[in-house]
């Protein structure tokens, strides 16, 4: 194959508009992608990145605008059409079906008769060409996260796509795995003349891996540039829509280099008396140890972070600390007293509050009122043995809503009617009410806009200042570095190291995440 150097325009989107009811997800978006380039698509959550890509994949129909592939106008009404045009996507979630084998998953989305031999041969060929070994006969539920990602990439590349879309591909990968992925992508564009669209909200990644970049903000294109001619702060400014001078925002946006925080400078070495102590915590799921002998201590008034990539065991630990999952072995001590993990609600009673990773699933009850959501954990205090005391619940809810600036149509309105940031505040307010001595915040800023992120950081710092021990579970390196005084790293269900933030560098943390001692 001859290397393609000409900047042939392979894809052109003109004036793409898509709205859901009154919400405009994409507003007249223009985007051009050339063969042989990695094009970064940068934007906050809700900026319209995924809607735009769904249009491009034929998953949703655009309201207006034209799409040109290799200069020809196309309809893009179905995923099949997108596939025929050579547009393929590596999805991050929900894309592989665990009950099926690898080859069946790869064959899904094709048309025509199913030919197992042909599919398996193609898998072997693609795997050999890009150095991505996979076993076509294996059932997907037996694969680890990294292997699944490989299957995703193979599945996509087998279609021989001219335009390859990757959606936040590195969130489940270690740094080393990410580097390998970008190496494969580099070969795909440079040697084979394909185009790659890399969707990310991580500035560092965009700056490192892309040739050109388009920034989306609130559904419109805010900025486009050749990556080498712009800077991370400029991109951040364009993404948020104002100058990003605050250090927290920079952290929230994943901007490097990382600066140490004031809290961090405040003697990270003399640790406070512990309010949360995990010892030998082990969780087995289907015979696999997803957490193995986790020891972790959080002192009063300090923010301790547990850093790792998706699938490293962070989510499992979050489930254990939310009381959703009983550990197979090990102990949890809150405020010096051992908690009986088999008793539901025991952690809460012992004084542990948690902002869970997926607030819709385990944080709030969307169809109950704000009042009910704010008071559901403190009914011992607010109600009688048998009957609810509505007035007491109401006044407590009013107090918390005022204290945490919860904006709601009414305290009787269902939490469903609140914005994401306000829902998150409801969770935080409830979990900090009462005699909370430990607060666990699991991915507390996922899906929030920059304003809400700043607010969340301020409140976590305030909680620590009030003497609450905070355990921050996060996949965001910059968030961890900005908030924590002490950072523990988890990899494959094990703590691979813990160090004060003053000793932490992205490189050292990266090695720990990869499972190596720093």
């Amino acid at each position: 194959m001859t290397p393609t150097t000409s900047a042939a325009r392979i894809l052109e989107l003109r004036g793409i508009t898509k709205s859901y009811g009154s919400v405009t997800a994409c507003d007249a978006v223009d985007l051009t992608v050339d063969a042989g380039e990695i094009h970064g698509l940068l934007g906050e959550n809700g900026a319209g990145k995924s809607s735009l890509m769904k249009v491009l994949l034929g998953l949703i129909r655009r309201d207006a605008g034209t799409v040109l592939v290799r200069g020809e106008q196309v309809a893009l009404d179905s995923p099949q059409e997108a596939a025929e045009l050579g547009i393929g996507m590596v999805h991050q979630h929900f894309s592989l079906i665990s009950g099926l084998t690898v080859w069946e998953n790869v064959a899904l989305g094709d048309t025509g008769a199913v030919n197992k031999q042909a599919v398996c041969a193609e898998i072997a060929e693609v795997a050999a060409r890009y150095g991505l070994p996979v076993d076509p006969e294996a059932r997907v539920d037996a694969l680890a996260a990294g292997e699944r990602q490989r299957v995703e990439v193979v599945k996509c590349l087998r279609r021989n796509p001219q335009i390859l879309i990757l959606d936040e591909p590195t969130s489940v990968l270690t740094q080393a795995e990410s580097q390998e992925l970008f190496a494969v992508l580099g070969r795909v564009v440079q040697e084979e003349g394909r185009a790659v669209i890399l969707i990310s909200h991580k500035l560092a990644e965009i700056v490192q891996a892309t040739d050109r970049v388009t920034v989306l903000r609130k559904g419109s294109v805010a900025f486009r540039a050749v990556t080498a001619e712009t800077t991370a702060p400029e991109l951040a400014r364009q993404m948020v829509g104002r100058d990003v001078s605050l250090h927290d925002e920079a952290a929230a946006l994943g901007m490097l280099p990382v600066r140490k925080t004031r809290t961090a400078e405040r003697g990270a070495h003399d640790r406070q008396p512990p309010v949360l102590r995990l010892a030998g915590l082990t969780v087995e799921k289907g015979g696999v140890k997803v957490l193995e002998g986790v020891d972790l201590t959080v002192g009063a008034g300090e923010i301790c972070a547990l850093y790792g990539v998706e699938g490293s065991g962070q989510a499992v630990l979050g489930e254990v600390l939310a009381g959703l999952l009983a550990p197979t072995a090990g102990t949890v001590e809150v405020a010096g007293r051992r908690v009986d993990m088999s008793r539901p609600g025991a952690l809460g009673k012992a004084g542990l509050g948690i902002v869970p990773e997926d607030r819709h699933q385990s944080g709030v009850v969307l169809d109950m009122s704000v009042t009910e959501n704010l008071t559901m954990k403190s009914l011992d205090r607010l109600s009688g043995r048998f009957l609810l005391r509505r007035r007491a619940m109401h006044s407590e809810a009013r107090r918390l809503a005022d204290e945490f600036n919860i904006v709601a149509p009414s305290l009787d309105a269902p939490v469903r009617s609140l914005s994401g940031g306000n829902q998150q505040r409801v969770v935080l307010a409830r979990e900090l009410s009462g005699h909370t001595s430990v607060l666990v915040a699991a991915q507390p800023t996922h899906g929030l806009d920059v304003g809400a992120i700043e607010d969340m950081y301020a409140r976590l710092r305030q909680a620590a200042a009030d003497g609450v021990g905070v355990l921050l579970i996060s996949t965001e390196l910059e968030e961890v570095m900005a908030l924590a005084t002490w950072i523990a790293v988890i990899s494959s269900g094990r703590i691979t190291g813990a160090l004060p933030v003053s000793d932490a560098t992205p490189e050292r943390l990266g090695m720990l995440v990869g499972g190596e001692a720093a």
Partner: protein
Amino acid sequence: MSVLDSTTTILASGVRLTVPLAFAACGEYIAERAGTMNISVEAMMLGAAFTSIATASATGSATVGLVAGVVTGLLLGFVHGNFSHRAQINTFVVGLVLNALVLGLTSYLITTNEFVSHQVHMLSIPLLQDIPLIGKPLFSERWPAFLLLALIPLTWWLVERSRWGLELRAVGENPQAADVTGIKVNMRRRQALLWCGALAGLGGAYLAVGEVGSFNQNMTAGRGYIVIAAVIFGAWRLGRTMLGCLVFGLSDAMRLALPALGVTLNAQLLVAAPYLLALLAMLLFTTQHREPGALGRPFERGST
């Protein structure tokens, strides 16, 4: 001689009772692999049994009646599919209401109408039917019974080997992932229900214009639920589902035949056997992840 004869009689009656179950179970199997717990299979069978006799009576042709039964099943599958996989009404609610509606409607209509009896003709395979013991039961049947010989392999091929079936299984296992891959999840589920309706309709019509020749009130008497039990008993595998139908058909035949033979065996136990076995099967299998991952769960885009 009498033992052999009575064994043949029981076998023959068992096979006859199995055939309608097997037709409907092929359909229910597909619906469940696509993720629909379809309890309206009872309505499909009962409705088809009624319309097949009504149509046969009106046209004078049992074969036309059979076709009318299939069409009735298709219609009910269409209604169920659109209610539960377009309008997103809980599939159990839809099933309950359809069962109640069809039972009421057919019961009402059979008491207000007179129908002429019609039956499709017998088909006996020469030579094979003379095999002792199993010859008559297996090779001398009303002709539509032999359709099973084609429909069971066809169902298997559709699910396990065709692209449609691969997509169907994907939809039943993980509708979100199937959607992202470009499969129209709810459309596949509606199609599976159509297939289910057609086959359950064939089963119900076979019961009426095949075995019995007439329709009586609540003729299927819960056979649809036995079909569901058979699919569960078969742990969502076609071969074992068919085996379940045969076991249930034979136990029904025993119940009918034993008093005449002077054997006292608890009839209620035999009637209850399918349900009991299905419950036992669920107790044994559900932890082995045999059932389709998204069985009974509705799919809407955007709900994670």
